[in-house]
């Protein structure tokens, strides 16, 4: 195998990794700030994909606009869920919040999957291209325009997200809530609003991931399971550490996967993922690098 | 067999709950453990019974060091306890509550367990029917039930954590008599944690006094009631 192929694999892997990073960041954000281990996040990915398809194939809009529509539509769905489901649960919450909310997300996942099944049907809905046909020549390495733009836009989204979190007032407020919700609310922060916004942002990230991939992974109702466990894989390994940690693990994963595909089929990879997750959960339930606390992710 | 508590230290974050506590519970005595709120009495009981692990020090029962053992392992060694906030099995009947105490420390079948548990209930003079669900008892009866349950596991050392708190005079006397009976008739050693100092003075052979995690006095009741440090610790509180 020559260097060119290796580099090309690497590029493809990084592109994948960026998508996984979006999923992982969404999960980590929602878990870190709202203390919700969301097992419905894959369904928000799915929603994003459907909206991406609508934007690209039905409305014939360009990739940027379609992406924006998908992002906002998905976050809207997320916001509705937060207000209708999670906010009331928080109000009625018993001592067993974590188990309850986990089960609730499973129920939500089931509902979203089957609503999609009932409304859109069991067929696959995609688009031939996200960006356009053809292959780009990047300093002598070939990568399809689609994958290139997916990687670029995914990275851009992550950067925007990072800037939002670190540099904007809203972002700082969100991080303050993550550190200490009670203290934050004492300084006048409206916790409910922050929770809703944060959940919306988390869903937006997943929706963007889904929409970006619409040409590669077309929309169908139960597609969400794979992005879900891959996202959780990253979060479990990175242990809810820093944003950087999540992203690096995600990129690493993307590359490993791209290489791994030469050896094992997609199916066996799925199985391997789960096995590793199971082992990690038993022996290192708080993450390979993480500390024992489950919240406090954005403390850096 | 004596219970020897040696230099036990227990911290919770920045708080030093037990600070180098040492004393002994002899094999046939009733030892009282008293002290103002927050002096570490219940913490010590939790350490002895395996619910907390001391940061340093040893708790020896005979040859065995209890500090690394789990509560159910310690129970098998013959040490059992009651809880400050009384713990019964609310949806089990009175008889079944006692049966639980007996069934897992004795290799006997359920029928025999039932018979023997009845005997225990009789021995403690439990005032109500054996078929009543424990959740319907009043506090005093629940406390008596938990003592009965503790007895059922054939202990050699009984740790009683604030058994008479909140009970009426007559109920306290009943418990006091029961504790003495257990000690003299069955030869069971008792370590008694209490707030009600009058009760302790009457029942116990010796008393250990804790304050803010330290032992400040140890000796027979007459001595303790005159001890300067003890009186100071209880200043403004109950008359000893």
């Amino acid at each position, binding site marked *: 195998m020559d260097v060119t192929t290796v580099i090309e694999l690497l590029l493809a892997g990084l592109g994948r990794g960026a998508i996984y990073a979006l999923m992982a960041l969404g999960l980590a954000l929602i878990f870190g700030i709202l203390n919700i*281990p969301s097992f419905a996040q894959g369904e928000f990915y799915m929603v994003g994909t459907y909206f991406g398809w609508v934007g690209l194939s039905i409305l014939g809009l360009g990739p940027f606009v379609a992406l924006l529509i998908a992002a906002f539509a998905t976050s809207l769905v997320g916001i509705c869920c937060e207000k209708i489901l999670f906010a009331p649960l928080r109000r009625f919450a018993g001592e067993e919040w974590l188990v*309850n909310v986990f*089960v609730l997300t499973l129920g939500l996942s089931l509902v979203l999957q*089957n609503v999609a099944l009932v409304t859109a049907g069991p067929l696959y809905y995609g688009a031939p291209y996200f960006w356009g046909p053809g292959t780009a020549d990047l300093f002598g390495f070939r990568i399809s325009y689609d994958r290139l733009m997916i990687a670029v836009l995914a990275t851009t989204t992550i950067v925007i997200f990072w800037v939002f979190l670190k540099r904007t007032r809203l972002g700082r407020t969100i991080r303050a809530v993550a550190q200490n919700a009670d203290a934050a609310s004492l300084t006048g922060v409206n916790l409910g609003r922050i929770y809703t916004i944060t959940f919306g942002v988390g869903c937006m990230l997943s929706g963007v991931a889904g929409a970006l991939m619409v040409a590669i992974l077309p929309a169908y109702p139960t597609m969400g399971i794979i992005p879900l*466990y891959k996202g959780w894989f990253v979060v479990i390994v990175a242990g809810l550490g820093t944003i950087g940690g999540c992203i690096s693990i995600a990129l690493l994963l993307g590359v490993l996967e791209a290489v791994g595909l030469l050896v094992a089929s997609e199916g066996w990879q799925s199985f391997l993922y789960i096995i590793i997750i199971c082992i990690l959960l038993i022996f290192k*339930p708080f993450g390979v690098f993480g500390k024992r606390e489950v919240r406090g992710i954005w403390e850096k | 067999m004596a219970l020897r508590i040696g230099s036990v230290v227990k911290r919770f974050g920045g708080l030093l709950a037990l600070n180098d506590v040492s004393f002994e519970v002899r094999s046939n005595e009733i030892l009282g453990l008293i002290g103002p709120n927050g002096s570490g009495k219940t913490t010590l009981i939790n350490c002895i019974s395996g619910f907390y692990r001391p940061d340093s020090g040893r708790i020896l029962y005979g040859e065995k060091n209890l500090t690394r053992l789990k509560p159910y392992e310690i*129970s098998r060694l013959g040490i059992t306890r009651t809880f400050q906030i009384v713990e*019964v099995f609310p949806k089990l009947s009175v008889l079944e509550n006692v049966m639980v105490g007996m069934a897992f420390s004795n290799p006997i079948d359920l029928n025999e367990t039932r018979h023997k548990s009845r005997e225990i209930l009789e021995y403690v003079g439990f005032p109500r029917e054996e078929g009543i669900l424990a959740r319907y008892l009043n506090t005093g009866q629940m406390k008596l039930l938990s003592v009965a349950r503790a007895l059922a596991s054939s202990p050699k050392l009984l740790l009683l954590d604030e058994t008479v708190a909140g009970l009426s005079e007559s109920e306290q006397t009943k418990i006091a008599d029961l504790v003495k009976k257990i000690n003299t008739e069955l030869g069971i050693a008792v370590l008694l944690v209490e707030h009600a100092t009058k009760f302790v003075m009457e029942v116990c052979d010796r008393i250990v006094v804790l304050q803010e995690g330290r032992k400040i006095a140890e000796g027979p009741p007459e001595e303790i009631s005159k001890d300067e440090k003890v009186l100071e610790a209880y200043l403004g509180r109950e008359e000893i």
Partner: protein
Amino acid sequence: MGEMKKITMTRITWKNIIALPSLALMIATPFVVRDSYISHIFILALLYGTLAASFDFAVGYLGIVNFGYAAFMGLGAYTSAIAAVTFGINPWLGLLLGGAAAGLLGLATGVLTLRLYGIFVACFTWFLGMGLMFLVAVTPEVTRGYLGLSVPFFPNVWILDFTDPLRLSYFTIMVILSLSILSLMYYLGNRTKMGLAFRALRGSEPAAMVCGINPLKYRVINFTITCAIAGTLGSFYAHYIRILTPNLLQTSQTIQILVIAYLGGRGSLWGSIIGAFLIITLLEVLRPLEAYRFIIYGVILILVMIFYPGGLARLLTRKELY
């Protein structure tokens, strides 16, 4: 009347009075009606009711929610099916094999995870179920994956002809299996030291510990038993439905069992059976709503989670087994 709990063997309550005739009615109906479809409904209702009761055995006593429960059932199903198809093993033996396989996995899972918090067990079992489903899907050489594994009938025994389209022989076996399992759970829960330990742990874990009860040991025992039961029922299902796909193991199936356990099983073992009958007949009657079945389950689950602050375990813990 609620205060007293008679320690005697039988209690004359209105539940007892209704129970026996209802039971007789339930057993007799398929034989009287002699309709293949009715037999099918009754078999499924009994099957899911027993599964729910068994699922509840873990939740109700020990607050352990096994989110991979359907996968344990599926493990039993595939074990028995593959044993029959690839190794020619008698399906009757397959019942035992399926139960054993699921029980062993349950034992391993229990030992490894039950010392952790409830959320970990819930999460872990969810992933485990997923892993099992992937394993089945990714080994089509053995399991035929999504193409479907064709499973043989039970071999005919005495007067029981399993090729009979009326499925009455299957119904008979289902009844026997179901009653045996329910009786076993009742016996274990109420007439053994083990059951006393379960009930004590449910009442107060600290008090149970000072009585010499090792919580982990009993959690593992309980968990293993429920998994073994799921496996056995799965094996039966394999030879009944006679075609298996990995979809049998997915989360939505566990949720179905969970919903049945909640809706019916809050009271008792019988409650699970009744709940199953209600739900399954309801779904059959509302045939046009078939597509919405899982939406309904999901919504029920969500509503339960929101409006019962004690949550799933607390809810299902309000059980008096009898």
